[in-house]
């Protein structure tokens, strides 16, 4: 019988020598959330979606249906360039070469990983002619600061931001505490139930 487990079903058949076909799956999009006005955007994870706009609407509930926040944006994973990753006291900027950048400048958003196991946080914006140029410029701006373990850059024009009129999407979120597990005093109810039962 053919297994229904996708991890098994996805394996190639032994006698099958055909070229591997692409998986019938969506691409991924990186999701960044701003917890409070004035705070930097932080990477929260990714969503699968067929395109950028679908990624935005799916990310909105997948990542911001609980804890209060004020804004969110998404970008195709393939539009994010990542540096190598370092450990210990090695600053990743020491591995980044200075490149001679092209003349056609665009805005890039830059993200830093300041602690292994944590999330990337928005460090700032800069103008560059290519992702490589953006890394190089980021190094000149922030390379001498504290140790950074990984850097991402993403072209601003590729990002699906929350528009000014969409800022009200999260207005009623603080009132939805019932979405948090902590809002359910299950232990107390169980105790009352057991007490009532034992009487």
């Amino acid at each position, binding site marked *: 019988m053919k297994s229904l487990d996708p991890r098994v079903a996805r394996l190639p058949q032994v006698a099958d020598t055909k070229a591997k076909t692409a998986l019938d799956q969506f691409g991924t999009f990186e999701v960044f959330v701003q917890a409070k006005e004035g705070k930097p955007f932080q990477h929260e994870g990714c969503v699968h979606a067929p395109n950028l706009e679908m990624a935005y*609407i*799916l990310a909105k509930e*997948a990542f911001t249906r609980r804890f209060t926040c004020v804004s969110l944006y998404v970008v195709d994973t393939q539009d994010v360039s990542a540096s190598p990753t370092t450990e210990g006291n090695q600053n990743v900027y020491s591995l980044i070469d200075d490149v001679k950048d092209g003349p056609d400048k665009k805005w890039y958003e830059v993200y830093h990983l300041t602690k292994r196991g944590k999330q990337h946080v928005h460090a700032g914006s800069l103008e560059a002619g290519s992702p490589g140029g953006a890394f190089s410029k980021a190094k000149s701006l922030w390379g001498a600061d504290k140790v950074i373990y990984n850097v991402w850059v993403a072209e601003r024009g590729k990002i699906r931001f929350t528009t000014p009129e969409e800022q*009200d999407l*999260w207005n*009623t979120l603080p009132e939805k505490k019932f979405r948090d597990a902590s809002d359910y005093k299950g232990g107390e109810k169980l105790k009352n139930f057991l007490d009532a039962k034992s009487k």
Partner: protein
Amino acid sequence: MNNDALKELLYKMADDLLILGHRNSEWTGLGPLLEEDIAFSSMAQDKIGQSYALYQILHDLGEQAPDTIAFTRNASQFHNCQLVELPNQEYDFSLVRHFLFDTADFLRWELLTQSSYEPLALLAKKIKGELRYHTLHANTWVKQLGSATTESIARLQHSLEQALPYALGIFEESPFEKEIISTRLFAGEEELKKQWLQKINEVLIQTQLRVPDISTLTPITGGRSGHHSEHLTLLLNEMGEVFRIDPTAEW
């Protein structure tokens, strides 16, 4: 202001939201994608929250408590349009209903931000962001599936044709329509329908879906005066089950 006119408006809005909120919540755990399952469930929860706020206003006007109103009435005492009580069927139908209803709902609340009845105007302003997301979600899906594959276009087209006569039933007029408009409680169903047609066309024109000539369709009405399909009774039996067993139950 005539309280009967106000209550009629509040009841039909609250009942639409409660019944559709419950229907949409039936997708929880069964949605086509994990993220979509979460999004659709959140919006269902929003709708039930909005209906609760309206039942609370009714309670302040002397009606019974929200839970009593929600869980103890018979189908013939509900004022929701028939569109919202129809079974979910496949996801394409649920999406098309979500698009048609939520577009009207967004516009209704937008008009109500100008209502002469302050509690309603305040609530309209408060929930604007929720409604904005609901329509953004609906429009994005309809644009996506309405132009994706032969199957997705055919499915949406079929659901659109099935749902439209019911959607026109959203705008069934109230016996107090003139008064509702003259006292600036609400701009009225005719105005709402005009704005709705424009909005749904703006979205559908960006897809490969064909919009049938609306003037040839017969609206399916009766819901506003308590005439419903058999589906509503089944839904109410399920929704009120726990309350009927134990009215004091909390969870």
